[in-house]
Each structure stands twice: as structure tokens, then as C-alpha cells.
């Protein structure tokens, strides 16, 4: 019950109803040659509260750069990023991040990795409350029995679950997932997709989730909208595709629906130019 109260407190949506507003965003870095390298430009994207949005594109298209501008790890060169009505000035506990390579601290146990985040963000909790909250989050990702293990003793899927538990444990209104399932095998990946949606449901679908991926099936299954990027450098948004599939979604059932196939085809053709070797200019012998 206590959890709910905290969630509600955090849930201050801006007047427009958007949780994240990205306006005319351009991000450039100084390149080694002394020139300026522009990763992304002209990015305009509004994300509603409680929406799940995937950003999809080829490697190097600036997906992660957009993500990092929301998390505050990268500063915009031009334009603004507004989260919960406030311009992003740096990383903050209103946004939970699940990093691409898990980024667990290798010298701490699973429990301690989550605890340190909770201890840092929820300083108003008592020690017992923190402990209880950490255990609850570990239970959510089924890791309670492995809580004393070090990250080096975990499988990839377990590491990712720890990272997810850590991100959820700080009660963020926005959850940022940077290719969270990229390094996992297909079976583990599927299980974690369901698990992620389960936690999102448990939190009454209030959290806004932004995810970077290059997996079309994953994007369709999880998202309300998919943002397809053009190739970089100077990448822009190619198209934003709505996923008109009702929740709760059943992975096995939806793949056979026409909507799914249409969306899948559309995303595929947006992302991949050459769909057969004939398209690549090679004729069958």
C-alpha cells in the first residue's frame, strides 16, 4: 500500500499529459579529427505517461544517444528534453536506467546492488523499510533466493533481472531500457519480456517505459509505439509506428493475427532495404 502512495506522489504529469517531451533535439560530439560529429538531429517525440515506446534502428543510428539525453547522461547540443514537466539537467532518481551491459557493481552481491540504489534514493526510509523494499523488488524478479550471489556468479538473464529490480526499486516514473535484452538468448529474452510487463502491470501501468532495441518482435510485443530511426550519422526519426494490439498481449496468440503481421512487415520494410539476395543484386542460378 505504501508503494502505491509513493507512486502517486511521483506521478505529476505535465499539463500536456506528456511524461517526456523531446523538442528539436540535436546531439553532436567533437570527433577525433577535430570535426563535429552529429549523432541525431531534428528529433521531436512526445511520450505519454504510462506509455511503452521502443526506439528501433540499425547500430550507430543514435538510439542510445536519444536514450541518454532522456536519462541526462548526455546533454543536448540543441533543443530540449523535458521529463515530468522539468527540463533534464542531469541524471535523476525519477528515471530508472537499465544499462545495456547490466552495469552491476561486481564487488557487491545482488542484494547489495539493489540496496545501494534504494539507500541512495529513498533516504527517508528506515533501515527496515529499505530492507523490506529491496527484498520485495528482488522477489518480483524471482531473485530472492540468489540475493547473496555476486554478479560474476549469475547468468546473463539473472544479471539483467537484478538490473531491472534495481531500476524499479527506486520507484522511477520513467524507466529507460538500453538494449536490455540484447545479450540474452532467445528463451531467456522471452521470459524477461513477460516479466517486465508483469512488473509494469503490478505497478498499475503507471510507469513510462522507453526502450532501445534492434529486435522487431520484441518491440512489437512490448510497445505501444515504435520509433524507427534512419541510419546515422545525423540520424532522424523515420517514422513512428503505432502498435494497435490490445493488452494484455499473449505472445503465442498475437503472432498469428493480421495486425501483428502487418505491423511486422511494415517495420521490417522500414528497417531492411534488401529482403532477399535478389534485392541485393544477386540472381539465383
Amino acid at each position, binding site marked *: 500500500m505504501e508503494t502505491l502512495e509513493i507512486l502517486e506522489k511521483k506521478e505529476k504529469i505535465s499539463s500536456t499529459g506528456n511524461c517526456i517531451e523531446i523538442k528539436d533535439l540535436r546531439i553532436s560530439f567533437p570527433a577525433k579529427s577535430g570535426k563535429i560529429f552529429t549523432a541525431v538531429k531534428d528529433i521531436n517525440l512526445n511520450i505519454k505517461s504510462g506509455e511503452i515506446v521502443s526506439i528501433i534502428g540499425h547500430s550507430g543510428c543514435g538510439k542510445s544517444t536519444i536514450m541518454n539525453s532522456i*536519462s541526462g*547522461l548526455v546533454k543536448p547540443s540543441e533543443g530540449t528534453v523535458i521529463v515530468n514537466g522539468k527540463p533534464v539537467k542531469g*541524471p535523476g532518481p525519477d528515471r530508472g536506467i537499465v544499462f545495456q551491459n*547490466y*552495469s552491476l557493481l561486481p564487488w*557487491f552481491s545482488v542484494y547489495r546492488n539493489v540496496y*545501494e*540504489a534504494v539507500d*541512495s534514493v529513498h533516504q527517508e526510509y528506515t533501515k527496515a523499510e529499505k530492507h523490506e523494499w529491496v527484498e520485495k523488488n528482488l522477489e518480483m524478479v524471482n531473485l530472492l533466493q540468489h540475493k547473496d550471489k555476486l554478479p*560474476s556468479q549469475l547468468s546473463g538473464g539473472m544479471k539483467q533481472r537484478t538490473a531491472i529490480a534495481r531500476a524499479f526499486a527506486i520507484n522511477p516514473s520513467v524507466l529507460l531500457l538500453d538494449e536490455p535484452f540484447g545479450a540474452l538468448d532467445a528463451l531467456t529474452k522471452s521470459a524477461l519480456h513477460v516479466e517486465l510487463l508483469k512488473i509494469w502491470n503490478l505497478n498499475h501501468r503507471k510507469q513510462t517505459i522507453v526502450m532501445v532495441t534492434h529486435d522487431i518482435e520484441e518491440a512489437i510485443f512490448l510497445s505501444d509505439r515504435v520509433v524507427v530511426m534512419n541510419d546515422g550519422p545525423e540520424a532522424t526519426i523515420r517514422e513512428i509506428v503505432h502498435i494497435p494490439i490490445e493488452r494484455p498481449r499473449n505472445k503465442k496468440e498475437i503472432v498469428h493475427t493480421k495486425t501483428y503481421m502487418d505491423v511486422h512487415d511494415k517495420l521490417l520494410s522500414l528497417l531492411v532495404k534488401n529482403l532477399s539476395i535478389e534485392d541485393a543484386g544477386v540472381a539465383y542460378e
Partner: protein
Amino acid sequence: MKKIFSLETLKNLGGFVVSMIILLIIWSLVSYITKNEIPGPKATWLVFKEMMADPFYDYGPNDKGIGVQLFSSIKRVLMGFLLGSIFAIPIGILMGSSKIAMKIINPIVQVLRPVSPLAWFPLGLLAFKAADGATVFIIAITSLWPTLINTAFGVSNIPNDHKNVGKAFGFSKWRYISRILIPFSLPHIITGLRLSIGIAWMVIVAGEMLSGGVGIGFFVWDSWNGLSLEKILSAILIIGFVGLILDKIFSGVHTFFEYEAKS
């Protein structure tokens, strides 16, 4: 659990024994060639036994047992080493975490690091007005460099992933230092401390030869004045073994703090 008497430890032990035998053979040869001007292992052993019979006797300022000498040396080394490390670790952390600090401090380090301990001695005398303080001072100032450089190296190599964890979860400065910076750099810091204690132990002999009074270095010099080469050789062996033990202690600490680096 590792077995204490595994094949591997047996092999290591065997290697050590063979190595010591070779050392004894070379020593005997040198002794033979110099017509016993440099005493051989046997003559040295007799004197060593005599020295060890009553290592803690104390017959006034210029006549003390080897144990007394050794312990006063170890005490000085530890004091100098601790003093040096107290400065080296925070300065190393500062250098490693700030590029500007690195640019400003590094030239000072590079200039002062190669200075011989003996060159510092007069300054130490001037500052502390006592030979004892001067010895501790030169140990501190010559042994702190490896710790400082290794700490700086460790801290400057903290992966961005770890730093981002601190940023993303709003770690305070102290939480970042205690939960990310120190744990990551600890293996590097301990490697630095291990090199530093080695240097400290090397410097003590030179320091005590200059300072006189009591200590293993003074003992070597005093034995030279008394023309007892057997005592000098015994002292050399003792110095060597104590150095080995100090090194083993730190390598043990290092293994203890080493975490599985792959996350």
C-alpha cells in the same frame, strides 16, 4: 575449499628448496674462490646460530641483539610506510579523478620520484632535528610513489559503466567514493602498497647506516666496523627473508580483495 597440501603447493615448496640449494652452492663457490675472505654458508651459520641464541639482549646503545635491531627497523619501516601511504592514497585518488589535478601534480611526482633516499636525509634531519625522525621521513617520501601512481592509475580507469551507475542512482560524493571508487581501485592500491613496502624495506638499511643508533642497517654497518663478515651475511639473509615475508603478506591481502572483474 583448497587443500593445504595439494600437488601444487608441494611443487612450489620443492621449487623453493631447489632454489635455496642453488643459492647455497653459488655462495659456497664465491667463498671458495675468494679463499674464505667472504665467509661460506657454514661459517655464517655458526655465527647466525650464536646471534639467534639470544636475539633480544640489550647491553647499552651500541650492543643490542639482532631481534632488537630487527624490530626497531620494522617499526620504523611501518611508520614511514604508513605516513607515506596516508599522503599517497588521497593524492592518488585526487590525481585519478581529476584530469586537471593529474596535469598539475604529475610533473611534481615525476621530478621527486627518482630522488635517492640518501639525498632526502639531510632535509629530514633539518626538519625533525633527530636521526630517527629523518629515517622515518626518508622511508615515507621514497616509498609513497608506487602507491600514489597505482592509486591514480586505478581511479582513472574506473569504467564509465560504473560511474554511470553512480550518476543514475543519485549517489552522493561519499557513496560514490566508498561504494564505487575505492572498491574498484583497491586491487591497484594494494599492488601499489606492496611495491611501496618493498621500497621502504630497501631504504631502511641505507637510512639506518646514516642515522646510526639501533636497527638492522646500523647493525650491518657496525658489523663492518667490527669486521664480522659473518654477521653482515647473516643480516643480509635476515633482511631478505623479512622482505619476502612483507611481500607475501601484501600479495595475500591482494588476493583477498580481488573480486571477479567480469560483471
